[in-house]
């Protein structure tokens, strides 16, 4: 082809000058092809990209082209200008069509990303946690959080705050409970003007303490939640004493009794919900649940407004406030030590947090299965399943159902498959209050012998994608599931390119 002496003109400005209207030539001329290149091929909204053509033909053919673009605008000289603003990534097709032969054209694609107005990335470290711990910490992702007295420069930076997509709101372990936090924050008050206290129940324990107001800053990401209600977690030796209606909701201990019981200096709940309790703790509920308390005269449960409740800090951001993307790298079978990842704020709000090819799994925002989707395994559906970065393994079903034996003591809370790794597959599917939503989508995962995992590499590994344990009747896809996946958690009633939250996506 090239030996035929075809006319090459690179850059449409040159083309216009060099060839101009001289194309009317001989009848024998033909156009063979038109190719287009644009540089740069990735830009942000409002920016430009220069496109050029390579027109091939025979005889005294014309190199003149006409330009079109599927979005934005393009000049006669091939200068593409992206739309001025947008908050999702856009793929624009630029087309150059030969004026001599309009059946001949070429295209090029330009990616237009949202303008990154701020940083929105806070580092995650999956390490052995804050010392001292009475047992080894694995599969816990930690971030650093700065809390300040609202509207002041009186601040404290707290490291090793557990990243938890399974709860909502920031909880800080007080120094009385062995944590770092010792800042004096103003109390959140209840509707009687008294300090508001809270009991937050997790599966294996509870946290108790007053609700305070703080400006929460993620300094690396540059995001801030102003005057956010947070929980200050105190030990059982603190005052006021834990009400029995709090502690009897679980068979577990007060997690605020020690650093080892808490496992972190705080819990950063960036989960599916705007507040930790929601409507069930407001007067709309009809009965007062044992979550928020007024202890001015003995501790009694009280109603709160939504605004008084401990609130998901992401929901309080000025931007990037519709959810989070958690990125932790793939770790090899056998595990790795101290991998680093990213907590990226917002979904589809900037160039680095688009949903890309992720599938969306919607979950109910209320009801007994709030926050749960459907995992199906070996033909049985488990509609009480969920994704939760705060759980440190993949917890699913039981040995009778899976055929996977438990490890020998002392690791008998974990699975030890006889063939390791044990390669498994399930499906995940969204659900609403009315039932299943969307298609079941296969998910592959592997479980390795936990006793071996914990002893490999001198017992120093902290991150395992193949760590599993039992959970009769459901799947809890904990941090082990996150390695090597982009996992999104969208906040209820917030708009995203994948629709309204709450949902999980990966």
């Amino acid at each position, binding site marked *: 082809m090239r030996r035929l002496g075809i006319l090459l003109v690179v850059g449409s400005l040159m083309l216009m000058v060099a060839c101009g209207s001289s194309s009317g030539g001989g009848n024998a001329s033909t156009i063979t092809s038109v190719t287009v290149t644009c540089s740069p091929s990735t830009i942000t909204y409002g920016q430009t990209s220069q496109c050029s053509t390579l027109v091939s033909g025979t005889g005294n053919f014309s190199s003149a082209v006409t330009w079109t673009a599927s979005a934005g605008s393009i000049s006669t000289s091939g200068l593409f200008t992206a739309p001025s603003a947008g908050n999702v990534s856009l793929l624009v097709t630029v087309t150059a069509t030969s004026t001599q032969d309009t059946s001949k054209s070429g295209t090029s694609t330009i990616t237009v990303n949202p303008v990154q107005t701020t940083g929105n990335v806070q580092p995650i470290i999956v390490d052995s946690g804050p010392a001292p711990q009475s*047992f*080894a*910490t694995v599969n*816990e992702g930690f971030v650093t959080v700065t809390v300040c007295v609202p509207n002041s420069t009186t601040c404290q930076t707290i490291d090793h705050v557990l990243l*938890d997509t*399974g*709860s909502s709101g920031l909880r800080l372990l007080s120094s009385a409970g062995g944590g770092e936090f010792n800042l004096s924050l103003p109390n959140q008050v209840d509707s009687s003007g008294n300090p508001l206290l809270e009991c*937050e*129940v*997790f*599966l*294996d324990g509870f946290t108790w303490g007053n609700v305070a107001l703080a400006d929460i800053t993620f300094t690396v990401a540059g995001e801030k939640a102003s005057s956010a209600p947070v929980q200050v977690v105190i030990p059982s030796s603190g005052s006021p004493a834990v009400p*029995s*209606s709090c502690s*009897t*909701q*679980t*068979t*577990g*201990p007060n997690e605020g009794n020690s650093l080892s019981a808490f496992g972190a200096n705080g819990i950063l*709940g960036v*989960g599916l919900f705007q507040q*930790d*309790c*929601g409507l*069930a703790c407001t007067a709309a*509920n*009809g*009965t007062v*649940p*044992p979550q928020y308390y007024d202890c001015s005269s003995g501790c009694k449960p009280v109603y709160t407004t939504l605004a008084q409740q401990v609130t998901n800090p992401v929901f309080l951001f000025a931007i990037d406030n519709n959810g989070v993307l958690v990125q932790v790298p793939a770790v090899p079978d056998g595990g790795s030590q101290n991998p680093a990842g990213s907590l990226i704020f917002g979904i589809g709000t900037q160039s680095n947090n688009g949903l890309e090819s992720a599938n969306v799994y919607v979950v109910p925002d209320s*009801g*007994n*299965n*709030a*926050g*749960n989707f459907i995992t199906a395994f070996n033909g049985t559906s488990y509609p*009480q399943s*969920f994704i*939760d970065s*705060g*759980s*440190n*393994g993949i*917890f699913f079903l*039981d040995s009778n159902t899976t055929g996977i034996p438990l490890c020998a*003591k*002392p*690791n008998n*809370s*974990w699975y030890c498959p006889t063939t390791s790794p044990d390669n498994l597959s399930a499906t995940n599917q969204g659900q609403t209050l009315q039932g299943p939503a969307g298609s079941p989508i296969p998910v592959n995962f592997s479980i390795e012998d936990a006793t071996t995992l*914990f002893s490999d590499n001198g017992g120093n590994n902290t991150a395992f994608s193949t760590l599993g*344990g*039992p*959970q*009769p*009747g*459901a799947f*809890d896809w*904990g941090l082990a599931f996150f390695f090597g996946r982009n996992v999104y958690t969208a906040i209820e009633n917030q708009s995203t390119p994948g629709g309204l939250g709450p949902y999980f996506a990966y």
Partner: protein
Amino acid sequence: MNSFRLAAICSHRATSILLSLLILVLPFPARAVLGDTAASVLSDQARMKGTLRSVDNRTYVMHEITSPSGSAVREFVSPQGAVFGVAWEGQFAPDLQQLLGPYYRQAQLAAASQQDASKQPRPRRAPIAIETPGLVVYETGHPRSFHGQAYIPQLVPSGVQASDIR
């Protein structure tokens, strides 16, 4: 075998009738629960201000108390009249001390004993699975959605599966 089964059904029918009578007769029955008699169902209903639905499953009777918010506690009564299992689901876990009665302390101790002196990693913010010869407790979920079950293996009628206690 057949005669035994018949006797069991008769006994169970008697329990149902007795329970109905108790509902009518006893305004404030003594509190009680797992391992206790069917009368404890009523105290739970009163405390939870819930609606009661009873289902006859032939090998047991299931009494379900549903609160106005939709959370539910289910109590499983054997033909002999014992509450052999309980299950719960909702935004909040119920008062487990009330529901498990004397077994609550046992469950606490069993949970604590799982935390042995070993430095090995443990499940964290993870499901509860207590399996002792005299008591089984499972709980799954996260804040805003709790699902649990507890039963006394020795009291579970023959033919009833653990997975029925939900």
